[in-house]
């Protein structure tokens, strides 16, 4: 999958989000920096509790109390040159932007759909709110068109959510998210609850729709191996922090953060000799009692003295021959600060430029 040329659509800078306030506040997202280019699929990978969903809700200002945004900025650039600061925007501005420009597909389609309304009613409701000029017949025709887009026949308009299979419900969610042709679609684990075959079908449809409609996707999942296949670039989160950012294939071939390396070796391969894998020792930290220094250091096999006291920042890495200038690499690890060459399994792959071009 090629990285499409585009302009920055969403720019997240130093975003922080907490749950609760005062000394007991849990810092769920700390200093997140992300750029979503127009038309790209940006993957956000992390385990449960890593803050990936909180980040998505913070970006869209959908975070509910006790969650709150405590710092940073989120710039939305619908066209090059025009900017909207989502964090300081008025509710009215957000009302216009949400769904028509930035839409969200929630994880659990069963809970996100209203069980007492038919699919058609829910689809036309969106149109009635945002496209008041459409007639009733036109709304219904558009709703049928949206269902057709995700491979559901129009006679399903009068079905209720419980009459649909899990895969179809998720398709309806995607159709709803695309109803107003947004530029950004945020997907929070959209296929996690589905079977592998259904998951794959929906992902393929989604990628075809993206080709056709040109929206950008922020795709949140814990399944890094899936993300490498479908995303253009990937950001990896751990305990509320972004620890690595890279183009998808570059991340797979040459991870630069020990956590990414550990995650990648947590997925058994489908080919080749069976190798003994170790995963990552220990378990993700409790956000209320974070370790000092680098939050990953208690589980890291490369831990140095410095890691226990100083937290590394997410710093851009020198473009050491990965040949992907459009997606700058960054990692938050003292091994990559340039003072010493990193271990070979965390170094830039010298042949990457050749294989990517």
């Amino acid at each position: 999958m090629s990285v499409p040329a585009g302009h920055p659509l969403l720019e997240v800078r130093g975003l922080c989000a907490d749950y609760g306030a005062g000394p007991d506040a849990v810092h769920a997202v700390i200093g997140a920096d992300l750029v979503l280019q127009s038309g790209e699929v940006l993957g956000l990978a992390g385990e449960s509790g890593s803050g990936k969903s909180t980040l998505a809700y913070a970006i869209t200002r959908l975070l509910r109390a006790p969650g709150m945004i405590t710092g940073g900025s989120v710039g939305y650039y619908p066209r090059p040159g025009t900017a909207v600061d989502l964090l300081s925007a008025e509710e009215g501005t957000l009302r216009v932007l949400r769904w028509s420009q930035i839409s969200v597909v929630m994880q659990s389609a069963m809970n996100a759909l209203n069980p007492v309304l038919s699919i058609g009613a829910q689809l036309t409701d969106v149109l009635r709110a945002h496209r008041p000029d459409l007639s009733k017949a036109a709304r219904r025709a558009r709703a049928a068109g949206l269902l057709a887009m995700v491979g559901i026949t129009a006679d399903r308009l009068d079905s209720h959510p419980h009459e649909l299979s899990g895969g179809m419900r998720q398709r309806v969610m995607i159709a709803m998210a695309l109803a107003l042709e947004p530029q950004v679609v945020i997907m929070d684990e959209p296929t996690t609850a589905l079977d592998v075959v259904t998951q794959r079908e929906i992902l393929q449809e989604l990628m075809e729709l993206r080709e056709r409609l040109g929206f950008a996707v922020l795709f949140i999942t814990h399944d890094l191996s899936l993300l490498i296949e479908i995303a253009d670039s990937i950001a990896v989160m751990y305990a509320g922090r972004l620890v690595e950012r890279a183009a998808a294939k570059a991340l797979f071939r040459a991870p630069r953060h020990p956590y990414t390396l550990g995650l990648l070796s947590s997925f058994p391969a489908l080919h080749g000799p069976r190798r003994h894998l170790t995963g990552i020792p220990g378990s993700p930290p409790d956000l209320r009692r974070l370790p000092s220094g680098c939050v990953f250091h208690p589980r890291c096999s490369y831990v140095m003295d410095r890691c226990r006291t100083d937290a590394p920042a997410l710093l851009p890495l020198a473009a050491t021959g990965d040949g992907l200038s459009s997606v700058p690499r960054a990692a938050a690890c003292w091994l990559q600060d340039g003072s010493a060459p990193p271990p070979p399994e965390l170094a830039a792959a010298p042949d990457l430029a050749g294989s990517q071009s």
Partner: protein
Amino acid sequence: MTQLHEAAPTPATSTPVLEARGLTKHFTVHGARRGRAALPRLGRRGQAAGRGGLVVHAVEDVSLALDEARVTAVVGESGSGKSTLARLLCRLIKPTAGELLLSGDPVPRSGRGRREYARQVQMVLQDPFSSLNPVHEVRYHLARPLQVHGLEEPGRSLDDAIAGLLERVALAPADQFLRKYPHELSGGQRQRVAIARALAVRPRVLLADEPVSMLDVSIRLGILNLLGDLRDRERLAILYITHDIASARYLADTIVVMYAGQVVESGPARTVTDQPAHPYTQLLLSAAPDPERDGPPALDGRGAPPSLVTPPPGCRFHPRCPHAMAVCATSAPPAFEEAAGHVSACWLQARDLTAAQASPLASRGDGNTSPDDTSSNDEPGGGDDVSPDTR
């Protein structure tokens, strides 16, 4: 990184610890009261089964042997009957037909016999958050099975026995965990306690139903490796139920692929994943995430599993199968032996089909255009446990 052993040294001639022969489970869907609302679009065919009741054909004629020191993986989607199979194997539910043999002997029906069976065949459930009792400490969870089964050793204190159990699942030091409540443990630690509880009664068979799917990615491998260790060190026969064929390839010696309640392919793990014979296994493999793949996979045979109330005649996969032939729509394929131990229930493996039988199935619509065939979808949620008679 070390190469894993490829074939466990168990001789094929030894008696399996647990063997299932022709295991079948039909769930009766009771009553039109609920049935009418829940099953809106059933044709008259579904009504055919006895006294107007509907029958869910959850597991159909499954034979399986669990050998000592081997991991057998059962792979399938939700609704394929893999969890029902596990519940049949540990006798939580009664089979409609078929028999279970423990070390070659039929399972006794007496109370004592049942208890002995329960001791030898233990289960580990998917969700350690709900399979441990939140009001009891770890110590209680591990002490109870020892007391219930009378396995307290005279010379050894209960605490020593429990500490030994925790050590076997790599929860050390044990005294740090004894007094903890489930909510004080991480997901991985909880699942280890659940495994230790199963090990407490010194079972010979461990039935693990999706033991890692609720856990975080980075700790799944720890549990899989623990199961592998238990196989190697304690010679347990392990049934590993999963929807993730890559993890089955990693852990298991044998893979059994289930589709719509039937076994469609079984064989040595690497043979099944590297040279899949059945079109459904091929579909599962092409849908599995694979970072090495370039471009989207083919997904031949996409679609949804059939209704188990009115399963398709012939091969249950034929409405979706890209290679469906005339014979597939009329008669169920027998198990064809590909190679030693590698079996596939697919007419493509038959060598003596007539031209008429082998002709492509014309009546089959283009299955690729309708993503979810819902005309017969009776379980919208696609839940694993279709068990209306147990409520």
